[in-house]
C-alpha cells in the first residue's frame, strides 16, 4: 500500500490501514518523543498524544515520498504542543535553579572511551534532564535543525529571548553531559 492509498484508507477509518500507519511510523514518533519527553512514562503519554493528532491531521498529509518527513515535522510540533499544554511543569523553574543542587563537573570529558550506545544513553539522559523549555529549544535548534525564524514564529517568542534561552540550554546540556560522563567514570581531558 503506497502512502497515498494509506492516507485515503485512514481517512475512511479503515482499521487495517490505521494499524499499518501506526506500525510504520510509531518507532520514529517514539524516538522523537523520547528526546522531547523527560522520561519513559512521559514519552508514552506524549506518543499517545502525538499519534492521535497525526490521525486527525492525516488529511493534510501530502501523500507522496515526503510522508515520512511530514510525520516527523508534525511529531515535533505536536510534542512541543504537548509540553506547552503541560503547564504545571513548563516554565516553573529555570534550569539554573534546577541545577543548583547538582554537583558541577568542570572541564571537558573524553567520551571516546564510551561505545556508541553508551554515548547515546548519556546524551539522551543529559537532554532529558533539561527543563522542558530548554529541551524544546535544544532539540529544535541542534538536533532537528529547524531554522530559528520558524522556531521563533511557532513558539511566539522574541528572538532575543530565544537566543538567551538557547545559550542557557546549551550551557546546561554541557554541564549535564559532564556530570553523567563523570558518573560513568569517563576521564576528563
Amino acid at each position: 500500500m503506497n502512502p497515498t492509498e494509506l492516507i485515503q484508507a485512514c481517512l475512511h477509518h479503515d482499521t487495517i490501514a490505521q494499524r499499518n500507519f501506526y506500525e510504520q511510523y510509531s518507532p520514529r514518533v517514539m524516538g522523537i518523543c523520547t528526546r522531547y519527553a523527560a522520561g519513559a512514562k512521559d514519552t508514552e503519554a506524549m506518543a499517545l498524544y502525538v499519534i492521535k493528532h497525526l490521525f486527525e491531521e492525516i488529511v493534510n498529509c501530502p501523500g507522496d515520498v515526503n510522508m515520512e518527513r511530514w510525520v516527523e515535522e508534525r511529531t515535533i510540533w505536536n510534542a512541543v504542543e504537548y509540553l506547552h499544554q503541560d503547564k504545571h511543569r513548563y516554565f516553573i523553574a529555570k534550569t539554573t535553579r534546577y541545577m543548583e543542587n547538582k554537583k558541577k563537573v568542570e572541564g571537558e570529558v573524553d567520551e571516546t572511551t564510551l561505545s556508541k550506545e553508551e554515548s547515546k544513553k548519556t546524551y539522551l539522559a543529559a537532554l532529558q534532564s533539561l527543563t522542558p523549555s530548554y529541551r524544546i529549544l535544544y532539540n529544535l535548534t541542534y538536533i532537528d535543525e529547524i531554522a530559528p525564524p520558524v522556531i521563533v514564529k511557532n513558539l511566539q517568542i522574541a528572538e532575543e529571548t530565544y537566543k538567551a534561552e538557547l545559550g542557557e540550554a546549551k550551557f546546561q546540556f554541557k554541564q549535564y553531559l559532564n556530570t553523567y560522563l563523570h558518573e560513568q567514570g569517563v576521564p576528563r581531558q
Partner: protein
Amino acid sequence: MNKEYQGNSIELRAKELLASIQGNCPDMVWNEINVELEAKRSKASEKWLSKYNTPRAAVIVTICVAVVTLVSWKFVFGKKSTDISVYQAPQPTQQIVNTPPPVKQAAATVVTQPKKDSVVVNKTVPIPNTVVTATNSQPMQVAMNNNKPIVLQKPVVKDNTPTTNSTPATAMHSGGASVSSEQPDSTFSLHRSGMAPMSSGAAVQDTVTN
C-alpha cells in the same frame, strides 16, 4: 543555519547520536489509540447513517404520497369515466347524428281475427302529417280465415283534406256494412252483417263472397 546559533562539537555529536533515534511503541499506546479511533469510526458511521437516512426517508415518503395520489386520482376520475360509458344515455347530439332520416311510415294496424259475434275493432294510430292517398300501390296483405281471405284494412287516417277516392258513408251502407261516421277519426266500429268487413278507402277490394 546562522553561525550565531551553531553548536560546537557537543551539539554535533548530540545530533549524530540522537537525531535518528527510534523506539518501540508499547501495545498500551495502540490500544488506547484504537479505542479512540473506534469511537471516531462509530461516530462517523452514525453521521453517515443520519446523513443518508434522512434523504432516504424523504424519498420513501415522496414515493408513498405519489402512489396514494395516483391511486386516488385513478379511483375518482376512472370511476367517473366508467359511469359515463356505462350508465349515461347517449348525448342528444349523438342521437341526432346516428338517427337515420325519418321515413314515411304507414300507421301500424292491429288486426284482430274477426269472430262471428264480435266486433272487430281496428285501432289505428295515426302518424301526424302522413297522407295516405289512393295512389298507394303497395299490395295489401291478405289474411285467411277459413279459406276466406280477409282483407287487411289500410289504416284510416283522418286527413284534414278528404281525398277524392274516399268512399261516402252511403256507399258503405249499400254494401251491408255500416260505418259509423260519428266515430272518432282514428277508430270506428264495423258491424258485421253477413259480409266481410270492408275497409274504407280507395284500396278496398270487394273480395267477400257469400
